[in-house]
């Protein structure tokens, strides 16, 4: 009797799926969902069912209508699997034409199977199953359903109904079902509704839904999409991952768990290395100079090679092994550096950070293993906290560059996890200062001497010149500057390494035909060394303006004029002041020379959406000023 009832129930359910096709006519899509959209998610139902600490079932049913070939990418299915996500997924799908009539079916056997090793990695165990629908007429709808089992409960799928630009959502639903006693924390961002919870004696369920959400457009200088898109993240209080059990409810406990389960007992070193480190630092007076010596030893010895297998995605390779191989990934190299510092009795913290030029903070109130993509090392010297990037062979001791600057990180300290902030490099510190002399002859040729210094987060701007031979350096130098016909060049590039490093580029060269003679006049471009770009206008700017990182550029160029010409016209001085930046051009002249000074400061921060048009105008005015010329006339 019970069996029959179940059978009937399942028939009802599948009957529903079969009928659903009539709903996929493209003409049923509300007009507001089609604005700037190349695809519309018709329905997207996800269920995450935590059955036990080692079994989580992720069920997906999705239908998406694609309007043109720009939308094809959203119809493609990519399902990743690793040691902790099963390869078996039972995919079933149907493709419908614009009227919602089925045209073809697909299943597991249509999937390709490829490795999914990220760029720059030697080996990882992650793989991907892919399906790309091939439909030549638009619009079409693809509907599919699959189920994937996870054998861990640490990394759970999260809800992000709108994932990217150009895709709107008609209906999305996310359900989290957990066994009784499974406790977790949630982070809801920009969720307008209220989640609906229900529980029975067998499970607890929470459901989030979204309806008729229009697509968004990417806008320059916008805050991170996480600040305006809806998302729900889940993190367990207690979990099991690749045979490692654990629990944490906050960052403090998280740090303790990382220390105990991932880092403990991995800093042992061979006795020879211990001996040579001891000797290396024996004559040095203080901890900081010792740490610097050790860091440079590590940089010189090792190189970055990424290998991620199973728990190895979170756990560093043993210091002993790194010592033997002289390579490792960020975790391994940080752990190795920490081990070397231990030998000299110097304390350091393993720190988890979200790296990248766009600054991202650790979510203070939401401890999760899903935060971060990089590891750096913190040396908590009294009043002089020092930070180390351990994967670069060149970066100076104590300098973090724009890869990990100015953001909060999770430091794994002896008393657990702690939120710390990496150094901030202010717009006035991020400097590029250039001084140049252009000696112009009567034919318009220029003999140039130029010196440029780079500091703060601009320190690495011309790093490409590093360790090149003179010939190669000249080639690269020509790519950096707009100036044409650079010949007989002598270039040098030096770095003054410190926690506030400076790189200096000096150049001497001749630029043939720098100025142009026409109609008895000699036209001399004033700025072919650092000219600005312009940015698109936006008719309807929706997001506030966010400038991620500020900087200062100063270019002082002196033009020595040929004796047989006199100045006919000069551009005017210019000053623009805006909340987000300042620009000025100052021109000084005497009989024989003209000095052009250009200064640009961009200030980071949040500005209202209306500031965007001012920013467009700002760049436009700069661009025009950068194009200005000095006009000389024959005496």
């Amino acid at each position, binding site marked *: 009797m019970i069996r029959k009832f179940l059978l009937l129930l399942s028939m009802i359910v599948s009957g529903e799926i079969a009928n659903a096709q009539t709903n996929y006519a493209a003409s049923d899509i509300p007009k507001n969902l089609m604005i700037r959209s190349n695809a519309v998610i018709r329905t997207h139902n996800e269920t995450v069912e935590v059955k036990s600490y080692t079994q989580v079932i992720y069920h997906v049913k999705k239908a998406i209508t694609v309007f043109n070939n720009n939308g094809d990418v959203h119809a493609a299915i990519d399902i990743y699997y690793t040691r902790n996500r099963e390869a078996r997924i039972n995919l079933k799908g149907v493709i419908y034409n614009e009227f919602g009539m089925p045209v073809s079916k697909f299943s597991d056997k249509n999937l390709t199977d490829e490795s999914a090793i990220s760029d720059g990695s030697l080996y990882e165990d992650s793989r991907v199953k892919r399906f790309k629908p091939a*439909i030549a007429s638009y619009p079409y709808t693809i509907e599919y359903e699959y189920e994937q089992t996870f054998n861990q409960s640490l990394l759970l799928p999260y809800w992000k109904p709108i994932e990217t630009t150009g895709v709107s959502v008609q209906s999305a639903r996310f359900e989290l079902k957990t066994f009784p006693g499974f406790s977790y924390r949630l982070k809801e961002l920009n969720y307008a509704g209220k989640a609906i919870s229900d529980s029975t004696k067998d499970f607890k369920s929470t459901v989030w839904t979204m309806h008729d959400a229009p697509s968004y457009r990417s806008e320059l200088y916008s805050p991170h999409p996480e600040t305006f898109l809806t998302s729900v993240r889940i993190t367990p209080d207690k979990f099991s991952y690749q045979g490692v059990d654990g629990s944490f409810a906050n960052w403090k406990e998280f740090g303790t768990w990382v220390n105990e389960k991932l880092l403990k007992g991995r800093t042992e070193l061979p006795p020879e290395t211990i001996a040579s480190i001891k000797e290396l630092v024996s004559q040095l007076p203080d901890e900081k100079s010792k740490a610097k010596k050790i860091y440079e030893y590590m940089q010189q010895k090792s190189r970055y090679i990424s290998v991620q297998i199973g728990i190895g995605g979170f756990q560093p390779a043993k210091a002993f092994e790194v010592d033997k191989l002289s390579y490792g990934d960020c975790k391994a190299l940080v752990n190795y550096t920490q081990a070397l510092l231990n030998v000299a009795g110097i304390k350091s913290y393993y720190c988890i950070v979200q790296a990248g030029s766009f600054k991202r903070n650790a979510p203070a109130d939401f401890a999760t293993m899903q935060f971060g993509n990089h590891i750096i090392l913190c040396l908590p010297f009294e009043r002089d906290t020092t930070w180390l990037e351990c994967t670069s062979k060149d970066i100076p001791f104590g300098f973090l560059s724009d890869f990990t600057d100015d953001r909060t990180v999770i430091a794994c300290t002896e008393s657990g996890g702690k939120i710390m902030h990496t150094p901030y490099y202010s717009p006035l510190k991020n400097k590029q200062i250039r001084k140049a002399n252009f000696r112009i002859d009567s034919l318009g040729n220029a003999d140039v001497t130029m010196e440029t210094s780079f500091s703060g987060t601009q320190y690495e701007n011309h790093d490409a010149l590093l360790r090149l031979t003179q010939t190669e350096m000249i080639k690269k130098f020509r790519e950096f500057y707009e100036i044409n016909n650079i010949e007989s060049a002598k270039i040098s590039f030096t770095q003054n390494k410190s926690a506030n490093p400076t790189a200096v580029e000096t150049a001497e060269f001749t630029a043939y035909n720098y100025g142009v003679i026409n109609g008895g006049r000699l036209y001399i471009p004033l700025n072919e060394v650092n000219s600005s770009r312009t940015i*698109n206008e936006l008719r309807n700017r929706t997001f506030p303006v966010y400038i991620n990182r500020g900087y200062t550029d100063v270019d002082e160029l002196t033009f020595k004029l040929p004796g047989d010409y006199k100045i006919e016209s000069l551009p005017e001085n210019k000053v623009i002041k805006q909340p987000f930046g300042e620009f000025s051009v100052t021109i000084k002249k005497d009989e024989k020379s003209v000095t052009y000074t250009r200064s640009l400061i961009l200030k980071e921060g949040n500005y209202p959406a209306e500031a965007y048009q001012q920013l467009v105008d700002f760049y436009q005015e700069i661009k025009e000023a950068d194009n200005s010329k000095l006009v000389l006339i024959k005496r």
Partner: protein
Amino acid sequence: MKKISLFIALLCLFKAADGQDFAYGSTTLQELDMKSYSRDTSANAVVLKEFGTARISSDDKCPLIFDYHVKIKIFNSKAFEYGDVVIPVYKSNNDRYELVREIKGVTTYLGKDGAMHTSELDPKKVFRENKNIHWDLLKFAMPNLTDGCIVEYSYEIESPYVFNFRKWDFQWNIPKMSSEYVAHIPAVYNYNASLKGYLKLTKNDAELEKECFAPGGGVKADCSKISYLITDVPAFVEEDYMTSSVNFKSSINYELSDYVDYMGAKHKVTKDWKDVDYELKQDENFGSQLKKKDFFKPLLTASIQNQPDELSKAKAVYSFIKRSFKWNNRFGCYSENGIKKAFESHTGNIGDINLSLIAALSSAGINTEAVLLSTRDNGLINRLFPVISDFNYVVAKATIGGKSYMLDASDPLLSFGLLPVRCINDQGRVLSLDKASYWVDLTASQKENKIYNLNLELKNNGKIEGDMTIMSFGYEAYNKRKAIKKFNSEEEYLEDLDEKMPKIKLLKSEIKNVDSLDIGVVENYHIEIDAYSSLNQQFSFNPFFMDPVKENPFKLKERNYPVDWGVPSESKISINLTFPKEYEIVSKPADVGLALPEGGGRFITSITTDQNSLNYSELFALNKSVYMSDEYPFLKELFNRIIQTQKSDIIFKKK
């Protein structure tokens, strides 16, 4: 055959046994002390020695055995990537695949103690990445790299693919002091070998090896042992605007021509075009597909029945096939799954799509042939003898009213007769079911052609208002359509265009012919330019504001390889500007007329003035697809002069 053997035997009299692999692990202190490579002091690393040998084994199934051994001096960490090794191996299925054995590696370096140290590669640290159904990658990172160290590694590959005898790359992006390859080829196998690149072989020896091949069953054969050596191989330096580096890097490539089987029967594999023609026509994935005309007959009826002539029929078939397929981004001159199946699933590789096109055109009664070609990235074709594996693409050649049209149905935006730029690569081989094959030039049938017409008025308030028409033809029309189709609608394209030019407002816009592929795209705009905040006593106007050349794309003093521009281009600009009566022109850029030798290109400008108007006209044409390296200085100078010209302004003064 006998003659050759005799020749080889004679050679043996003069040559000592040579072509030996160097000893493994024989790094010397002298090599470790090397601070730079004297022939190329800019090199971050140099291959000290590289040795490879390939032979056909007498073992079961007679696999090809390739042994590789290299020793690389690494001067500094910029070249550490040469310590990260990837060995790609191919597999057809579970029974037929390449096997890698005996991977060995050792890093030798000077310790702080000044003594020589070694670190062996741990076999457990060799990873196998199962990339996709056809490729596995064996990957390893050499341990303990330090500035000045030497890495050495060797491995053996056993391969069932004897048709393509192992190729050898003499040239890398770092220099090599010596690169030697020894091929042991049993007399029962006959290969065509071709040397690519401009380097000369330092040594090329052949000698006879008696009865080296004995696969059993009484079969015994002698081998030719052929050694190829190049010493002092320079680093390969990539230049901008060049086609595939494969064309220029020195390498040796083989294709099996014929072989003798166990029974003593000779099998031709590739010999001359006559054989190839025959084989391709019989090939299940090529000729057989071309014969499937009947399949398309009923499908085409609706599209072609009302077409008045052959050309419109052909165009109708072409759009039908374009509509019916979505290209899966894979190249190939063979059909992957058969065109019926491909047609039903609406997707396929180039072979599936264009063989369908050929069959469909033929079924509509249009004289159509197949053209095998190699794409630009794939390199140039060896035309001395047929090397089928060099080809990676096929297109249709339809002959209508004495005129031939090259057609590729993989891209819906291509107009009739326009090949994608990737196909414009030297020559292709034309194959038909009833004639002998022949070569055909793969040149651009049209130019990248654009015309700008501007009719503008400068007003007293400093604004410029007027009409702008942009006409795009040939490849330019294709590019334009592609740019427009990146947006979901024409409105979104126009909005973006307007937003891209903050100073210019598009007051009225109209785009014509976006979907009429056989005619040019025409854009009409009524524009307003915020040119000046007000008109001063004196101001300047730069007439070159449409599409200026800001930087010379050619920065090198000289060039080793041809400049490959893709397709010829031509642009014409005409600007008519009226200005307020209170002003006069006091200076204007001189007219220029520049030309490249042999009609290679032109840049012509002229400015004429009237009472209160001026007319600027410009013609810029690059007429060739490829400029040889001796034409390079002229090309570079042409761009230089264009930039010069565009730097000067028209100067207005109040009367």
